[in-house]
């Protein structure tokens, strides 16, 4: 059985990068010659058809006209009346970004001072509890203790 051209060899032939071995087989094999000829014919037909189609399509579709230089620059540049408005818009954007951060920072500071006051109150309470626990007779039991002492 004859080994015909591999797909890569056919591609190489179409791309014009075939090696000597491939070219030698092509010269000796009518079947591969016919296959490559059909492939090249198909690609050539596609090229012609694509060019013909695009020539028609370019006329059919409306490509909006690109403006000449001076008009183009004018279109892309900010008009004079819009420049102060642009500066104001930029300032508003900066404020909109910066202001929430500033407010949040201020709130955090307030929250920190509140926390310190709470800690002081808690410490005072704990100290009071400690002093209460430190006494031998709890405050509610002191009248009973005094009665017992008097009875003795």
């Amino acid at each position, binding site marked *: 059985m004859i080994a015909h051209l591999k*797909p*890569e060899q*056919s*591609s190489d032939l*179409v*791309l014009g990068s075939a090696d000597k071995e491939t070219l030698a087989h092509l010269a000796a094999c009518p079947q591969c010659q016919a*296959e490559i000829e*059909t*492939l090249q*014919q*198909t*690609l*050539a*037909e*596609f*090229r*012609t*058809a*694509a*060019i*013909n*189609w*695009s*020539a*028609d*399509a*370019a006329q059919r*579709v*409306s*490509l*909006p006209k*690109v403006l*000449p*230089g001076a008009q*183009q620059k004018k279109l*892309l540049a900010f008009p004079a009346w819009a420049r102060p408005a642009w500066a104001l818009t930029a300032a508003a954007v900066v404020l909109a970004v910066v202001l929430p951060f500033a407010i949040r920072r201020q709130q955090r500071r307030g929250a920190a001072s509140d926390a310190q006051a709470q800690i002081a109150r808690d410490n005072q309470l704990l100290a009071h509890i400690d002093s209460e626990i430190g006494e031998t007779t709890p405050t509610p039991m002191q009248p009973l203790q005094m009665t017992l002492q008097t009875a003795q």
Partner: protein
Amino acid sequence: MEQVLSISQPVIREDRISELEDIDGLVARYRAKVLRTVAFSMGDLDDAASITQDCFLQAYVNRAQYRGDCSVSTWLLQIAYNLVRDRTKTRKSQFWRQARLQAVDVTAAHLPSAASSSESQLLARERLEQVMTTLADLSPSQRTVFVLRFVEEMELTEIAAATGMALATVKTHLYRAIDHVRTRVGDAKKEVSE
């Protein structure tokens, strides 16, 4: 084939740069070329028209960046390919399966050699349909490479430069496309002869 420039060829470089100044001439010369490359990549004529316009606008606005190292044609196709890539990033793959190149039908009334017999016209049409079916199965990038090679007849290195792909990637895309066309056309030929 792209003309390679050296430092001793400033005239060609200057000519290329000045070509961009005449926007109307630029559009007239390259409109069909950019449109067909984009249309085959996108599979949609409206999108292709929009991208073609954006391509010329970008080329004109950014003309100061063009150094004349490659041809104006390659530079335009480079801009067009980047626009196609940006546009296709926003599309889902489902879109591509559905698009199927329906808007780009080269088989209808654009067959070459109109003087040939009706039988050869029929066979040519059949072959073109096989090419279109193959293209519909390829990715937009693969279609672009195929069209740049077989319609614009660009060298592989030029295609790599215009698309920003590695040369090996360009070759892989082309090998795959050629193999599909060869198989489809061969199968269709067998069916006709049987």
